[in-house]
C-alpha cells in the first residue's frame, strides 16, 4: 500500500480575516439585493484582499523549506544558539515575515517550552539563517516537537503554516507515527567552575610522571599469545624468533588492560524527590543537582586534561555505570547518564558500587560525590561502610559532600566566578 501524501500545510483566517470576510459578505449580499453598487465595490475590495492574501501566503508556505539545527551538546545554564535554515524554493516570489515556532518538551511532557524566531524576507532561491539563543536551566531529557513555519504576510488576515513532517511507519493496515531518537535532546548538567588545582584533590595523582611512565610501552600489558600477522599490526609487535622458525610473520598478542584509573560515583540522593516532587527552581536549589553538576564538571575536566580512563557510576533508582575514557563519545555517554539521572530518597549505592567495580575491572581510586555526608549515608545504609572498607584495601576513595565546606576545594568560590560577571558589567 502506498502511503498517502501527508499534508503539512494549513491555512486559516485570523480574527481580523474573519471580520473582513463577514463585512465583505454583508456588502455583497446587501449590494446585490438592494442594488447598491458601492457596497458591491466594497465587497469586491474586501474579497480581493482575502484572495490575494490566500494565494500569496499559500505560495510562500508552499515554497518554504526549513532545516532545524539544534546544537550537539547542550549544557544547562549555557546559552546555545538554535539555528534554522530557511530556503525559498520559489523562482520568482520572495517570502516575507516568516515566523518559526518550535516546541521543547521535557521528559514527562509536563513542561513545554515554546520557542519562536523569525525572518523578515527570503529572496527567491535563497537561503537565510535565523536563530534564537536558548538557555535551558535544568538538565534532563527533552524532546523536540514539530517546528512550524508560518506567515501572516502580506495583510495579516490569514495565517498559513507548514509543520515538520512526522516520521511514519507502515504497519500492515495503517500508518503510525514514530518519534525517532533524533528528536530527543539531552541537556547535560550545568558545568560548575572548578576550583584551582582541583586535580590535586583527586585520590591518585593522575597525570603525574609515575602514571605516565607506567603507561609507556607495552610492558604493562599481559602477554596472551601468538598469532599470524595481519595487515595493520604494528611491526613492533612482531615476534622475530617465532617468525624465523615458522617462516611467516607472527605477532604477539596482549590482553588489553581493563583497569580504569578513576571511578566517579554520584550519590543521587534527594529527600524531597518523592515527597514533594521536584519542580522548577526547587530542583535548581537541590544539593543533589550540585552533586550531579560537579560530577559533570569533573568528567569534562578529566576528559580534557589527559587524565586517563575514567568510569562513572550513578546511584539512583537503578544503578548505572559507564566506563569512558578521553574519547568524545565516552564523555558524551557519561554526560548523558548524568543528564538523565533521577534522584531518589534511597539511592542504590551498593549496587552502584558493584556495577562500578564490574565495569572498571576493579578500579583503585573512587570519588563519591554526594549531597550528604559520609556518616549520613552509612546511617541510611550500613552495608555501605562494609563495602567501602573492602574498596579501601584496593585503592583510595574520597567522599565529597557538596553541602560541606569541603566542597570549596572543588568548586570555585563565588567571588572567583563573579569576576566574569563583573567583567561583563564593565563591558555593558
Amino acid at each position: 500500500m502506498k502511503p498517502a501524501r501527508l499534508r503539512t500545510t494549513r491555512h486559516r483566517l485570523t480574527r481580523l480575516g474573519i471580520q473582513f470576510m463577514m463585512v465583505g459578505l454583508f456588502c455583497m449580499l446587501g449590494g446585490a439585493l438592494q442594488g447598491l453598487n458601492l457596497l458591491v465595490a466594497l465587497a469586491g475590495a474586501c474579497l480581493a484582499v482575502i484572495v490575494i492574501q490566500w494565494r500569496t501566503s499559500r505560495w510562500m508556505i508552499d515554497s518554504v523549506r526549513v532545516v532545524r539545527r539544534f546544537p550537539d551538546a547542550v549544557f544547562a545554564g549555557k546559552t546555545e544558539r538554535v539555528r534554522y535554515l530557511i530556503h525559498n524554493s520559489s523562482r520568482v516570489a520572495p517570502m516575507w515575515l516568516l515566523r518559526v515556532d518550535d516546541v521543547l518538551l521535557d521528559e514527562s511532557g509536563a513542561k513545554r517550552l515554546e520557542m519562536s524566531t523569525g525572518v523578515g524576507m527570503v529572496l527567491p532561491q535563497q537561503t537565510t539563517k535565523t536563530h534564537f539563543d536558548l538557555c535551558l536551566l535544568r538538565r534532563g531529557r527533552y524532546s523536540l516537537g514539530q517546528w512550524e513555519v508560518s506567515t501572516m504576510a502580506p495583510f495579516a488576515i490569514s495565517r498559513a503554516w507548514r509543520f515538520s513532517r512526522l516520521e511514519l511507519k507502515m504497519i500492515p493496515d495503517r500508518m503510525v507515527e514514530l518519534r525517532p531518537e533524533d528528536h530527543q535532546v539531552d541537556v547535560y548538567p550545568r558545568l560548575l567552575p572548578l576550583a584551582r588545582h582541583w586535580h590535586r584533590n583527586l585520590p591518585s595523582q593522575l597525570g603525574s610522571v609515575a602514571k605516565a611512565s607506567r603507561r609507556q610501552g607495552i610492558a604493562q600489558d599481559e602477554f596472551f599469545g601468538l598469532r599470524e600477522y595481519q595487515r595493520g599490526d604494528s611491526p613492533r609487535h612482531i615476534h622475530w624468533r617465532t617468525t624465523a622458525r615458522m617462516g611467516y610473520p607472527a605477532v604477539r598478542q596482549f590482553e588489553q588492560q581493563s583497569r580504569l584509573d578513576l571511578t566517579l560515583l554520584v550519590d543521587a540522593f534527594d529527600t524531597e524527590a518523592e515527597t514533594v516532587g521536584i519542580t522548577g527552581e526547587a530542583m535548581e536549589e537541590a544539593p543533589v543537582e550540585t552533586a550531579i553538576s560537579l560530577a559533570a564538571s569533573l568528567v569534562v575536566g578529566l576528559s580534557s586534561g589527559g587524565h586517563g580512563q575514567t568510569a562513572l557510576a550513578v546511584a539512583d533508582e537503578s544503578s548505572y555505570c559507564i566506563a569512558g575514557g578521553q574519547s568524545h563519545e565516552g564523555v558524551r555517554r557519561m554526560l548523558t547518564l548524568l543528564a538523565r539521572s533521577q534522584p531518589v530518597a534511597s539511592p542504590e549505592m551498593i549496587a552502584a558500587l558493584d556495577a562500578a567495580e564490574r565495569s572498571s575491572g576493579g578500579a583503585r581510586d573512587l570519588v563519591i560525590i554526594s549531597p550528604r555526608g559520609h556518616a549520613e549515608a552509612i546511617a541510611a545504609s550500613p552495608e555501605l561502610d562494609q563495602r567501602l572498607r573492602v574498596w579501601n584495601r584496593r585503592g583510595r576513595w574520597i567522599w565529597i559532600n557538596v553541602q560541606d565546606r569541603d566542597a570549596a576545594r572543588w568548586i570555585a568560590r563565588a567571588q572567583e566566578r563573579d569576576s566574569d560577571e563583573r567583567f561583563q558589567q564593565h563591558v555593558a
Partner: protein
Amino acid sequence: MSDFNNTLPEFDRQGASVVPRPEIKFMRRRTMFCFAVLTALGGAIIGTSEQTADLKWIALLFACIGFIAVDWLRVFSLPPVLAYAAMAVIAVYGVGNFMGDDKMKAVAELLVSAQAILMLQKKSLRLFEQLMIFVLLNCVVAAVFNDAFNYALFFLPLSLIGGCGLAYLAADMTADHVIDHDHRTPKESITSLRQRPDARFARMDTRIATRRIAMTGIKLPLMTTLLLFPAVILISVWFFFALPRRVAASRGSGGSSARVGFNDSLQMGDWGKMLQNTQRALRVKLLDPETQTPYPSDGEIYLRGRTLEVYQCDATREIATASWTKPVVSDINLTVPVPPRYVPRRSSDQQFFDRVNVEVTCEGMRSASLFATAPYYWIPGSEKLRHCVGRWTVERDVDTAIMLRRYPRTTYRFGTHAFFRGLQTRWTAFEPLDDPFSARASRRERSPAENDLSTSGAQPATIDELSAIDLDYLDQTLDYSFADMPSAAEIAEEQIQKIPAERQTSFRVARRLESYLVSGADYSYTLDLQPSPMPGMDAIERFLSVDRKGHCQYFASALVMMLRSRDIPARVVVGYRCDEFNDLAQQYTVRQSHAHAWVEALIPWADIPDGEVIYGQPRGGLVWYRLDPTPAGDADTGATAPRQVVDLAQDLWNDYVVDMDPERQRTALLQAPGLAPMTQSYRAWIDNVESLAVAINTGEVRGLGGGRLFSTPAAFAAIAFGFLAVVLIRLRWPAWRQRRRSAQTRTAAPRPSLEFYAETLDLMEEAGWHRQQGQTPFELVTSVAKQTGHDPKATLAASVLSPLRRLTEAFYQLRYGASPSSAESEETRAANDSVQAQLLQLRSLVTDQPESGT
C-alpha cells in the same frame, strides 16, 4: 546554593532595563501613523455626504490627537475602563438617535465617536484590528447613503493606506509574537502582559530575529503596495463586473440633496445663486442612430425644461416679487407618452434634417421636469418620459418618480429632428391641445416597429382653425397689462417703427425686439442684483425703465411682454443652454450655471421668411420660434482640460460603478469609451475564430499551401522558428544557469570549524561585515579597521575592532599554533577565558547596537 544558579550573565545583566529596539519602535510608530490616517480617511468618506459633513472634522481631529498625543508623545491615554464607559454612553446616545428619522446619520455618528475613543486609547494589536473594522464599516455606511463622486476620491487612497496598514499590522504581529518569546525583553510589546510559565526552566533571546522582522516590516508596505495593489484592484474590478445582478441599481437612502431643476413656478431673481453654481446637472450625449457614433454638433444646444405662460407680480411689496407659472387649465397640462417619430411624406425632406439620438443623464432634481430638444420622438429608452402636450417639454413618468419631493438621478433617451448639419433648429411645430397628434398616436397600441412609420395628422393652418382650448391657451400667452408695464409696449413700438411698415411681420418684429435686447446697448447682463425698495413698481417695468440690468429671466420676461404688447403670443421657456463640450467623453456637460430662460413666439406659417428651414416636423399652421434676448454675460463656460478629465472620471464612476445594473452589466464593456475599439476588435477576432471553426468543419480551409501537403512558406516559417528556438535555448540557458550557480556558491560560504570563530563571523555578519570568499581572517580585521570617521559604521567598527582582533589572534593561535589538546596549563585556561570574554563583548556590541549596519 542560590549563587550557583546565577550563571546566566547575559540574561541577568540587563534584566528589566532592556529598552525596546529602535527598529521595533520605528515600525510600530509607522503602524500607528497608518491607522491614524486611515481613521481620518474613514471619517472623510463618511463626511462626503452632506448630512454628515461635520463628522469628518471630528474624525480628523481625533486622529491627529490620537497619533500625536497618545501614540507619539505619549502625553496621555484613555484607560480601558474609561473607554468602555465612554463607549456605553455613546451607544445609549446612538440608540436614542436611531429612533429618530435619520437612521443612517445616527449610525455614522456612532461609528465616528467609537473611532474617536479608540484613537485615544493606548494602541494594541487588538485595537488596530478594531480600528480597521471600523474603517470598513465607515465605508459601508458611506456606501449605503452616498453615491457622490467624492466617495471614489476618498476610497482609493483609503484602500491604499488600508493595504499599508494591514501590511504593517502583519509585521507587527509577527514581531510581537517573537518578542513575546524573548525572556529578557520586558513587556514593552503591545500585547498584554503575560506571565511566562516556561521562564522557570529556560530563557530565550530572540532580539536579532525581532530586529530583522522589524527592518523588513519597515520596508514591506511599499513592496506590498507596488506588487499586490494592482492585483487587488484587478480582482475587485473583475468581481464587481462579474457579480450577477438581479435588481436595478438603486441610490443610497441619504442622497445628495437635489438642487437642480425647476419648479412649475419660477420666481424671478431666484437664479442668481444657481447661475454661479458649477455643479453638474446633466450629461447630454448626441449620437448618430445609424453608426452609434457621436453626432458632430456645432455651438450651443438648448434643452427645454418647462414653458411658462402666466406672469404674476406682487407689486405691493417694497421690492416687487414676480413669478412665471403655467396655466391652471387642466387640459393643457395633459401628458402623454413621447410621440412617435415624424416621417415626412416626401422622402426628399429627409435631406433637410438629421436624425439624432440623445442620451441624457440627469442628476437628482426637485421637480419632475426633464430636458429635451424639440421636436423629439420615441426611441428605446424613452419609456421613462411623458410628453407635455402643446409645449414640447418632457417630464418623468409618474411611475418612475419615486417620491413627490425628490427625483433621483436618471438616464433617458429620445430621438430628435432638431439638428441639421450640427445646428439646432429654432422652430418647433405648434401642437394642438385638444387633439394632439401625439395623443392620438399614444391612444393606439403602439409597437416599436410601428413607431417610425406613424405620421402626424394635419396641422391647423391659421389661428382661426384652432379649437377653443387652444384659443384659451393662446389667450394666456397674450396676457399683457399696459398699466403695469408701459415701457414694454413703448420700447416695442419704438423699435418696430424702425422696420418698414410693409415688412412688419410677426417674425421680423420678434427678431427686431430680440436683437435690440441682445445688442446690450441699453441693457446689460448681471447676476449681481441689488434692487433698492421701490413699492408699487412691476418687476419687468423696473428692469426695462429703471435698473436696465439683470439676468436671462429679466431679458426673457421683458421680451415676452414686448411681444405680447404687439399681440404676438409668447411664452418663457426655462431649461439649459449649454456649450460646454467635453472632448474626452464626447458629450455636453450641463452645469447649473447653464440654466437659462428664453422666449418662444408663435409665428404664423405665412410670416416665415424664405430660406428658413423647417423640416422633420409637421408643417403648416403655426410654429413656435425660439428667441434668446439675453446678451452675452461674463459667465465662464469654457471647460479646462483637467476639468474635462475630472468630469470624465466622474462619468465613468457614475456609469460603471454607481449605476451598474443587469442591463448595463451586459453591455458595459462594449460601451466603455476607451474599451469600445478593443472590444470591437475582440469581437471581430471571436467572429473570425468562429467562422474559421466553421470553415474547418466544412473542409474549406486550405492553409498556406492551398490545400497541398507541402507548402514552401510554411517550411520556411518552421525552419526560422526552429532556428530561433535553438538559438534561444542554446544561448540563453547557460547564462541563466551560470548566474544561478554563482548565486548558489555565494550563499554556501565556508564555515570555520572552530566554533568560537564561526560565531564571531556570524556576529560580524549581523553587524554588516561579510567575510568575502578567499578573504583571510586577518584581512577581515584590516577591512574593519579601515572604516573611516565619516562612515556611519565607524563608531561600531572602532568598538568592535579590539575584540575582533583578539579573537582572530586566538583563531590563528589555535588553528595554526600549538595544539589545543596539549597539557592543561593556566595559560591555556586563561586564553580560553579571554576568548569567551571577548566573544561576549563582541556579542553585546553587535546585538545592542542602535542601528544595524546591514
